């Protein structure tokens, strides 16, 4: 029943993908080799000029730096924090069911709503964060969380981490609950140290789901748009201008559709490189373990 003819089963999916992804993608690739302006059907073929322009441009290098900083730092913190909370939830403590249920909320919250909520919390004058931190004497004076270039990206990252570390925690917990209780207890009774137990019993169970979670997060953070758009639109002084915000600005505010397309494609290349590097690193790690 799985003869050659069964390949027709792929038809609906690939027809759909070709229509909504393939065809637009081809057009974008073509656009990236032209000087097309938004609203004009065609532009002149300019070869690799858009790409060359990007690599020479200070704006692109800056946006690249912002994107990679944001991606690596949020993913790293989310993974560590999520792993720790996942381990915590696996301990025999009362009330962990409640905590687990609460963790669902940030994860399910739409990104735009999360961004809006944190923008209000970070508000320099009437925001809750400044009020809380000054009233508990942690900081002396109100700060401009989203207006200070040294703080803005970190503040956005904070909002993103708050939303996403629960996802990692739940994934970790799921992996842990696949480990038979007897195995955990056996390792405990054998007198294996905490590190040994982690490495031999826990890590194998959570490695794969965590790796998938990390890949998904790297992809999402390289694409990051919504949260920055709602919170700062790339300011102050471009401190939060990621590649996606730059693509938007070039293509829609300036009308440089061709250049925008080139930068968008470069951001995909960066995703591929980062994920490739990450996979290689984790594979090497598991091989040596």
């Amino acid at each position: 029943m799985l003869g050659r003819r069964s390949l027709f089963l792929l038809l609906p999916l690939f027809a759909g993908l070709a229509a909504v992804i393939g065809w637009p993608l081809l057009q974008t690739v073509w656009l990236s080799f032209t000087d097309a302006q938004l609203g004009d059907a065609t532009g002149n073929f300019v070869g690799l000029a858009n790409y060359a322009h990007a690599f020479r441009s200070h704006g692109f290098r800056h946006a690249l730096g912002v994107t990679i900083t944001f991606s690596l730092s949020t993913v790293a913190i989310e993974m560590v924090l999520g792993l720790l909370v996942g381990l915590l939830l696996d301990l025999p403590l009362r009330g962990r069911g409640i905590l687990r249920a609460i963790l669902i909320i940030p994860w399910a919250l739409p990104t735009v709503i999360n961004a809006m909520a944190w923008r209000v919390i970070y508000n320099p004058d009437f925001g809750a964060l400044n009020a809380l931190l000054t009233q508990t004497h942690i900081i002396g004076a109100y700060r401009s969380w989203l207006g200070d270039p040294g703080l803005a990206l970190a503040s956005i990252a904070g909002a993103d981490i708050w939303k996403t570390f629960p996802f990692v925690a739940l994934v970790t917990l799921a992996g842990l609950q696949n480990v038979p209780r007897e195995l955990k207890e056996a390792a405990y009774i054998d007198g294996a140290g905490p590190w040994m137990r982690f490495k031999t019993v826990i890590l194998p169970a959570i490695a794969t789901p965590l790796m998938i979670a990390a890949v998904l997060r790297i992809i999402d953070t390289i694409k990051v748009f919504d949260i920055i758009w709602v919170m700062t639109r790339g300011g102050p002084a471009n401190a939060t201008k990621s590649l996606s915000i730059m693509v938007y600005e070039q293509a829609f505010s300036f009308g440089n559709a061709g250049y925008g397309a080139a930068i968008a494609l470069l951001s995909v290349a960066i995703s591929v490189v980062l994920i490739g590097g990450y996979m290689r690193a984790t594979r090497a790690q598991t091989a040596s373990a």
Partner: protein
Amino acid sequence: MTQYRSKKRFFLACASLLALQIGLAEAASANTVLHGLFMSQAGYSEADVRAMTAAYVKMHPDVTVDLEFVPYESLHDKILLSKGSANGYDVVLYDVIWPAEFATKHILQDVSDRITPDMKSGIEPGAWTTVTYKDREYGLPWLLDSKFLYYNKAILAKAGITAVPTTWPEVIADSKIIKDKGILQYPIAWSWSQAEALICDYAVLLNAYGGQFVDSAGAPAFQTGGGLDALTFMVDSLKSGVSNPHSTEYLEEDVRRVFSAGQAAFALNWSYMWALANNNPKESKIVGQVGVEPAPGVPGKSTISSVNGAMGLGIPTASKNAAAAWDYITYLTSQKVEDAYTADAIPMWKSSFEEPALMNGPLGPMAKAMETTQTQLFPRPFVPNYPQFSAALQTNIQQSLLGKAEPAAALKAAADTITGD
């Protein structure tokens, strides 16, 4: 046989469907549908525009108007994107800074020939700059606006300041008094976020210091003279602690919120803040305490300063209903309609400023400040690549405000970016 019959039935069904559609299309053509794009903050409120439109549609039963309201930040991009779109807009609201770009890119229709002499002579000249590029008109002006100096009378009185400052150095001096007396930590609020709002505030100060954005050849000229003085003024006011440091993340609405909460003695903002801050107890804690004056000047250089913040209504090139759209625009911009909605915006018609109902009404002080300012509205540069021009300035001015670059270096960097493109 049955197969044949069912096929026949199928064709019949198709044919009748087709007929139905043609019928529908004909029915629709009797009724013109206009798609309008408006902005949802400042000037006429969304409710005002809807009410004006409802009145218009009532008089023209054959016309339907679909309205879309977007935040100011999306307005430009929406108009640009709709170019070449089959079902785009028929009427768009646009900012004074875009006609050059929209004219060069053929996004707006040239309506010079539709404008009547009555319109030409009746509307304040400052408003016309909004829709004009190279002596052609690309729509009708709708809103007259500039940034004004607002002050909190109660705070000034508390600090013992009796005369309202009339120059920018006086504003700083008075703010120092307020700060030193411990009345407010940061007496002045500005909208210096990385956005067009920052360029508007900068334009006011550049105007006060007698600077210019571009020279006669269209090349950047803000990096020396008045343009440099303006940025130096801004940076110094932050350093001396009289300007609210959070200004670098404020838009106009943040300025309004801070000022209306009594947290600022001075604020620079558009005319819309007047009614909300001084007359609306739901929105403001300082009702009845607000004063407004034209933005001050600088001794030896200017007496007052301003930035042209007017907006216009235009017809996109792709619109197939230009005549109907024009009729709707002339209604919205007519003196009769503008005079009926003075709660949120000051009319742009010369004779409106003679109406006692306006000048002595709740909007009086604002109308007086506008009357003085509107004769000399200072424009932002008419360059086709204005979005790039503005973005380069925004970024580099912010660098300087945030202490990352000296004013001269920052403005030079902005000029280099602009000429580099």
